[in-house]
């Protein structure tokens, strides 16, 4: 065997104890590069560490640069953090992409297929291990794609984990696919270990001891799918769209086992109307989409509001407008879901902050939809939908199914006169479903009277509009509450929703170390905003940084409109297509602090 080691720069250092580790794997899309991230995830799981990963892919099946970042820590983490400690690069483009993120003493494992790595691309104190992984896999194993597993073995050595653990992880991933898949991968590991020996690799990092209990690694999309099933959802309809397709796929794989159905519709318009049909028949129903699909679903949202049909709509935001950047992160559809549709009708908008929230708040959304008979949005974003994160195992015993004023064949007997849209104190009317004797209804998107018959009578119009809109206020008491973090006496505050939660918590730690104390209101109810949590927070700070991934500050605008205190609200915005890193928030805060007398508008920096 000839191993071509082109470079062996920098002496191998003694293993350095670290609190956490961040790795990036980059190469061409579609050749399995990102399976290394999956293997690393499993490896860290075995070590009892929390992980958070993020994938950067293009909207194409094969080719183009693709990378994945995975971070592992003994602490809770909900962001990729800052910097890269280990880079596995299958080409120079991967190094170019990562170079600004590389930490000073990082380790780079490089596939020198097309020649040695240009040293000037990487930090002076970094260690570079080069080998022709693809060629080796091709000649020794007759399959160039096994470069991924070969290099995973090398990474295992860099991380100082026992070879047996790397073998266990590869077995766990490929065993189910049979010996013909497993054996070549085991051979690839052996080759990788030999390469590591030849390169003289010793452990560079002393990984933290993980002592985590029952943790799971799951994406927000999958957690929503699971929450839907646990919460009694049985009918799902969707149309493939990045980054929400995983929900469709999850439910197509799992919902039938529970007697439900997940339908791939001909378009989003069909999808939402199908969900309305299932809801009409008494089945808990959901759709999920992203911005462009939400555009098409909008008329259906109004129908749910007007006809008073329970419906859950998941909006996984991506970079817009129009087709935008389909695989990229953004939070620019908040206005779209809060204000979507012509006319005025009630809706609720919930915003989970991590995968745990995604699970439990999908159950909340189903219960709220049934209880208040209206459309309920779950507003998440690309990072939350698709990034895998470690969270405590979901507790199914906490799941409650509450169906509100649903009337069945027994309870209809206690009703003398049944009117589907009966005006009540809380705006919610008794609801039957087809099949209930004597519970017949007319359900319609036309303006209607209590019977459900078309009506343009002005007195009826006022009464029935008020009845419907009353439900927004009534629902406030049941909306998921936000959480306040940080120093209660701090005069600087953060407000956000969704996946900015993780980076903000870390930014607060960095700021505190630099003597800047902050507090943080994470909101989970976007519409209606809850004055009980927002007003006291705003009253307690001089400045509230509203952090969101868009240009115009949509959440900031909504808070200013509904809660006031516009003078205290300062936007920290990003719309590059990737989520905030903690350091970016720190830098913005420090920058804004320096020129605080000029604040007030959108920060375009």
């Amino acid at each position: 065997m000839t191993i071509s080691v082109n470079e062996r720069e920098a002496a191998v250092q003694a293993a350095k104890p670290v609190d956490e580790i961040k790795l990036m794997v980059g190469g061409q899309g579609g050749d399995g590069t990102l399976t290394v991230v999956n293997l690393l995830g499993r490896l860290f799981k075995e070590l009892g560490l929390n992980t958070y990963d993020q994938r950067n892919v293009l909207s194409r099946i094969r080719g183009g640069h693709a990378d994945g970042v995975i971070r592992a820590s003994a602490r809770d983490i909900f962001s990729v953090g800052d910097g890269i400690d280990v880079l596995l690069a299958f080409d120079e483009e991967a190094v170019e992409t990562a170079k600004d993120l590389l930490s000073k003493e990082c380790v780079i494992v490089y596939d020198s297929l097309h020649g040695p790595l240009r040293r000037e691309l990487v930090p002076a104190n970094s260690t570079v291990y080069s080998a022709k992984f693809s060629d080796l896999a091709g000649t020794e194993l007759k399959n160039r794609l096994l470069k991924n597993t070969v290099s995973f073995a090398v990474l295992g050595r860099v991380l100082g984990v026992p070879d047996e653990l790397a073998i266990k992880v590869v077995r766990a991933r490929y065993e189910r696919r049979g010996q013909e898949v497993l054996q070549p991968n085991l051979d690839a590991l052996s080759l990788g270990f030999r390469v590591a020996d030849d390169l003289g690799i010793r452990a560079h990092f002393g990984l933290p001891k993980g002592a985590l209990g029952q943790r799971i690694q799951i994406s927000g999309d999958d957690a929503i799918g699971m929450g839907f099933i646990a919460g009694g959802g049985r009918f799902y309809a969707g149309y493939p769209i990045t980054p929400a397709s995983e929900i469709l796929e999850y439910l197509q794989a799992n919902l039938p086992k529970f007697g439900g159905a997940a339908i791939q519709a001909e378009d989003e318009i069909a999808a939402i109307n199908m969900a309305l049909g299932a809801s009409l028949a008494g089945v808990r129903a959901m759709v999920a989409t992203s911005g462009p699909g939400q555009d098409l679903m909008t008329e259906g949202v109004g129908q749910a509001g007007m006809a008073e049909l329970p419906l859950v709509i998941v909006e996984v935001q991506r970079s817009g407008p129009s087709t935008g950047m389909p695989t990229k992160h953004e939070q620019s559809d908040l206005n779209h879901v809060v204000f979507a549709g012509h006319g005025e009708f009630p809706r609720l908008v919930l915003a989970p902050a991590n995968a745990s929230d995604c699970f439990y708040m999908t159950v909340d959304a189903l219960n709220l939809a049934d209880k208040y008979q209206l459309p309920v949005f779950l507003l998440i974003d690309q990072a939350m939908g698709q990034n895998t994160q470690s969270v405590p195992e979901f507790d199914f015993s906490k799941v409650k199914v509450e169906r509100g004023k649903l009337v069945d064949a027994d309870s209809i007997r206690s009703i003398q006169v049944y009117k589907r849209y009966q005006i009540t104190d809380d705006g919610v009317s008794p609801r039957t479903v087809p099949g209930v004797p004597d519970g017949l209804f007319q359900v319609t998107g036309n303006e209607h009277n209590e019977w459900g018959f078309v009506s343009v009578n002005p007195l009826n119009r006022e009464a029935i509009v008020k009845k419907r809109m009353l439900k927004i206020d009534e629902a406030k008491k049941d909306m998921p509450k936000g959480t306040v973090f940080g120093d209660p006496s701090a005069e600087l505050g953060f407000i956000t929703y969704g996946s900015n939660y993780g980076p903000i918590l870390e930014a607060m730690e960095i700021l505190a170390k630099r003597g800047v104390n902050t507090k943080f209101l994470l909101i989970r109810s976007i519409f209606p905003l809850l004055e009980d949590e927002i007003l006291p927070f705003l009253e307690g700070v001089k400045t509230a940084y509203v952090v969101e991934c868009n240009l115009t500050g949509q959440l900031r605008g909504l808070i200013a409109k509904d809660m006031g205190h516009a003078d205290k609200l300062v936007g920290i915005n990003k719309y590059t297509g990737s989520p905030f890193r903690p350091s970016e928030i720190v830098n913005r805060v420090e920058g804004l602090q320096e020129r605080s007398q000029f604040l007030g508008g959108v920060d375009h920096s």
Partner: protein
Amino acid sequence: MTEYFKPVTPIWCPGCGDFGILASLKKALSDLKIPPHETVVLGGIGCFGHIHNDLAVYGYHALHGRVLPTAMAVKLANPRLTVIAAGGDGDGYAIGGNHFLHALRRNPSIVYIVSNNGTYGLTKGQPSPTAQVGYEGTQETPFEPVLTALSMRSTTFIARGFSGNQVQLQMIFREALQHANSLRGMAFVDVLSPCVTYNDTYAEWRKATVDVNADAGYDVTNRTKAFQTVLGLLEAGKLPTGILYRGSGKSYEEMVLQGKEPMAYQNIQPAANVEMYRKLISRYK
């Protein structure tokens, strides 16, 4: 006994073909003794889409063009229900055209009745996709819904009625309801129903309609010949009516539900599925 709504009087103009459809449908439902509380009628937007208000059944007024996806999901949610989707030609063949194709492709066991008059009556007479050339200046070739349905190999019941022939229409509706309620798939019934105000075609349609079932040699189970006969009659300026095609194939409920308990009747309380949840989560451990 609980009192519920009383059906209202139709909104249609005197002489509208839709009265004939309503009367025939009522008769067919009553002949077959289908319980009102197990019947859902979903109307599209347009004059005919109001029909659910005129019947003592569970009624739903869908969004314009969206009656088929809605009705299909009602059937999937609870296959024990009699599900009737009803709308006009604008609703079904223009704005809802995509759903029409996909409903034909999926074959859900619902009855789909289209009141076809070639015009948008409710918005005052614009030409629809089935408008004859020259109507309101349209130069576009009319859409032929029954030919389209015949051309799709997934369809199992295709009929065309004429609101001026109630005896035939009642027969078609009875057969259509029986087809759908025995879960054999979608019963598609296009009904020629003149708009007396904007496109009064009674006289010419009365002359042009041909009952294909009157010919003992017409084989409703032979798709190729049915297509040939229907196309031939259309090209000769005639309007073929009756049951045009009847076949067998998998219904959508069969494909999707595979005989499971209707979703609408399932116990969805979490305690009912504890072991199954454990399996769901194990993949992520």
